[in-house]
């Protein structure tokens, strides 16, 4: 009897989940493969896209990709295609040859989001960026020659010092992810050091000391920073983390330095606003606007509808997006009213009608330059 009851319960659950969707009306369907399925960023992008569904007559389905398992990512893309997707947006530059072969065989188009596709750009440009099934990608901030995040970190430190002349940051150490995963982070560090050298030469009385990069402790292997970091860098006032602060801040708390040491970091994680600016250690955070997903989305919708912009380049491109950079209480107050934290589509940079207006099939006057221009105006100062 127990087995029969368990059988009935499981079958009921499967069909309750499956059948309504299986017989739902057919729409244009876009699959979204994200880094993870939790966090404020995920909630925000889903809220933004959900709001677009009726206006674009488009349905979005989601899956989670692996950061380093190509076969799994290929299987996930196959699942999205099996689910009836006409276009797919992925956040990983992995197994692109085989994924694009799948797209070719299924007549599906592919776009990139939150990823600069640097490996494909350097090693497989013809296979990816000249592939007719690939529409292009928008990066997580800058890409290619458009990288200047190291300068942003420096500017934030200087702004902090100007706001806090009594307790300035004079001695910093840095952290980064490994170069094989994020090669540009080494460029950020070089940019930061370059600016510090210029600044110290011009302001010897306010010189900032930057500890040499220590490969043992300063490269974070996608795990929380080791507490030996503080032994390797005694006397520092702040940590400049070109990778997400979520790998650094918990170690600062457990080491008991979060009340005295400052943190300038990339990324934003749930609850960071409670310890930001005058409230805690975080003095700078950078996050990509979720609305940047309109770049691959619009290009996919154009392709699916068989149209193209009059000024569209022959090859697919990877584009930089502006970033939301917070380095003051005022910035954070603005950010707290953005879709990133409210998960309310009304707080987004773009309404559904504005997104529709960016497409070539709905607006004959729409241009590729116009779409790219939108990506330039998603900064903290552009928040409504």
């Amino acid at each position: 009897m127990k087995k029969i009851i368990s059988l009935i319960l499981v079958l009921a659950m499967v069909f309750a989940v499956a059948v309504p969707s299986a017989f739902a009306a057919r729409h244009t369907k876009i699959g979204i493969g994200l880094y993870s399925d939790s966090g404020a960023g995920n909630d925000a992008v889903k809220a933004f896209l959900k709001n677009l569904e009726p206006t674009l007559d488009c349905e979005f389905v989601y899956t989670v990709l692996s950061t380093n398992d190509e076969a799994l990512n290929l299987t996930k893309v196959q699942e999205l295609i099996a689910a009836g997707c006409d276009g797919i947006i992925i956040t990983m530059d992995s197994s692109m040859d085989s994924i694009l072969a799948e797209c070719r065989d299924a007549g599906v188009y592919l776009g990139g989001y939150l990823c600069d596709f640097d490996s494909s750009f350097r090693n497989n440009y013809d296979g990816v960026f000249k592939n007719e099934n690939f529409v292009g990608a928008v990066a997580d901030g800058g890409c290619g020659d458009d990288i200047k995040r190291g300068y942003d970190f420096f500017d934030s430190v200087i702004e902090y010092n100007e706001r806090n002349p009594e307790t300035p940051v004079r001695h910093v150490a840095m952290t980064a992810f490994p170069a094989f995963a994020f090669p540009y982070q080494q460029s950020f560090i070089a940019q930061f050091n370059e600016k510090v050298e210029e600044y110290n030469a011009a302001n010897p009385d306010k010189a900032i000391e930057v500890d040499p990069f220590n490969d043992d402790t300063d490269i974070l292997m996608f795990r929380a920073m080791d507490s030996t970091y503080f032994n390797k860098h005694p006397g520092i006032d702040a940590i400049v983390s070109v990778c997400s602060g979520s790998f650094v801040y918990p170690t600062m708390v457990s080491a008991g330095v979060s009340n005295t040491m400052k943190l300038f970091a990339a990324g934003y994680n749930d609850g960071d606003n409670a310890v930001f600016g005058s409230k805690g250690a975080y003095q700078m955070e950078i996050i990509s606007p979720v609305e940047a997903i309109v770049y691959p989305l619009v290009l996919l919708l154009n392709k699916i509808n068989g149209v193209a912009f009059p000024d569209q380049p022959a090859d697919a491109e990877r584009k930089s997006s502006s970033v939301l950079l917070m380095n003051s209480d005022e910035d954070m107050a603005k950010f707290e009213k953005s879709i990133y934290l409210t998960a309310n589509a009304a707080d987004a940079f773009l309404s559904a009608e504005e997104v529709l207006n960016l497409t070539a099939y709905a607006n004959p006057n729409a241009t590729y330059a116009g779409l790219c221009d939108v990506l330039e105006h998603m900064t903290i100062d552009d928040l409504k």
Partner: protein
Amino acid sequence: MAENVKTAAGKTDERVSFAGFIKNHIFDLTAYAGLAVMVILFLIFNSGPRFMYNLSSVIQAAAVYSILALGAVFIYSMGFMDVSLGQQVGVYVILMILIGNAIGGVLGIVVGFIAVLALALLCGAINGAVSIFLGLPSIVTSLFLMFFFTGAQYLMMEATGENTIRLAQTIRPADRNTYSLMLVIIIAVLAIIGGYVFNYTKLGKYTRAIGANKTTAQQSGISLVKWQVFGYMALGFCIAVGSFVMLTRTGTAGKGTGTGYAMDIMICLILGGMPLKGGMKSKISSALVGAFTYTLLSNVLTTMGVPLNWINFVKACIFLLIVLLTCRKSKGILPR
């Protein structure tokens, strides 16, 4: 085995015989019924224009599972398991890419595969022999290999300076249907060879005997070291071939390649009706039935419209259900 029972009137009661047959073959019948249900649902929910695409996707996804599971049958039939399987796959795919790119051409691929095959057979021999010589449970030696290969995979990828490495040449047929046919042929050939070896040679008979009762097998003159080593080498051979098939599928590898395969193969075998304690009821067919059931399950749930993030949850429920249905004793949980 089903037995006929004579009634008071001296006539054979066929109903008792049928019930006995069902009882004795509950694992096989449940496994085949599960596969049949999946095939029917696949046909129902894939009647659209992407039928052939989805069919070939299933074949592609099932190919690696099938090949690895065919090898795993030899060690599961002894009541052992190997948790290093996934990490071995990861390292072997990376090695084949590195060697293939260094030498170039078809020769590079052939040399890469031979090197990986030799390494896989060696690791199989080590895995089987060390556990006997040191008196360790086989899972302990496979744990050692798992950590070894995890470290090796990480170091090799770090040395490349890339998150993903890619085979410079294409080894997969451009036509999707040709590729699927190629995979079907590989699976069929390995299944025929595996079936013959498992059912008609000493290797299959002795590994099952070891799984049924190790002491009895030893007292019957079966060399535990020899046949355990050969069993693990059979798995090693299949890991090498499975790694090659995976390489044909993606053409790339990274730090996470192969992750989770050890558990996936265990699930495939259980879905295919394999008794986890091994023994004489072990069947080579469990590998194919389980691999295709497992793969079809994902595809069917997807095409039925189950939200993609719910699929693992639903699969877990179905897996639990199968375990409950195939549970032999009221006290037992897993098939044994």
